[in-house]
């Protein structure tokens, strides 16, 4: 298991080279990319709660690991100032079969969205504004 909160850019391919464990039959990965919905976004700024962030990420990864018997799990989440097109976060899950690997990855994404203390701020030509949480993010947790 590897959990990382970092400002540095990461390389998803390099991360996967070391990932999986000896009994993996399926690996699912998700990489989130900074996207620009408005066409004018200059950067995305991510704030977090040091200490609580790592604890929340670890708890989410441990729960996924136990529930879907994962042989390996990886969560990387960046903080600080990010440019459009850069990777913002990555989740990888390794299990014996694909159903477990897919479900565990979706579970972790849903929980990371609204239970890990990160906040996104969009920087544009007219200034900056905090991105609001969506009610669908909270509802997504109900399926687990």
């Amino acid at each position, binding site marked *: 298991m590897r959990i990382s909160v970092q400002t540095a850019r990461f390389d998803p391919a390099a991360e996967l080279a070391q990932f999986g464990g000896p009994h993996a039959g399926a690996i699912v990965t998700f990489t989130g990319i900074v996207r620009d919905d408005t066409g004018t976004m200059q950067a995305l700024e991510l704030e977090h709660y040091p200490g*609580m962030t790592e604890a929340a990420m670890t708890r989410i990864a441990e729960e996924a690991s136990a529930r879907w018997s994962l042989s390996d799990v990886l969560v990387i989440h960046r903080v600080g100032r990010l440019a459009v097109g850069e990777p913002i976060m990555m989740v990888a899950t390794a299990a014996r079969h694909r159903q477990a690997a897919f479900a565990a990855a979706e579970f972790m994404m849903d929980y990371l969205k609204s239970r890990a203390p990160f906040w996104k701020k969009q920087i544009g030509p007219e200034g900056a504004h905090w991105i609001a949480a969506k009610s669908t993010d909270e509802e997504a947790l109900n399926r687990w």
Partner: protein
Amino acid sequence: MTEVVYFAWVRERIGLPRESIETTALTVADLVAELRAREPRYDAAFADVSALRVALDQQLSDFSAPLAGVHEIAFFPPMTGG
């Protein structure tokens, strides 16, 4: 002394990331009432607590929770990770 920490727009509205306070508040809601009475910037930040979340010693909690034994209280908007 209790540490109170603020994140995202709560931090910006109040104008500082953390402060040490002396309080006799029994619950989070009592502390919010105390802070709101201090200055307009606190009053504005806590005007709608349904738009806020609270963590006690880095564990998500709620506004009716007791503060006995708590060292660090954090206020922030709903999280937007991922």
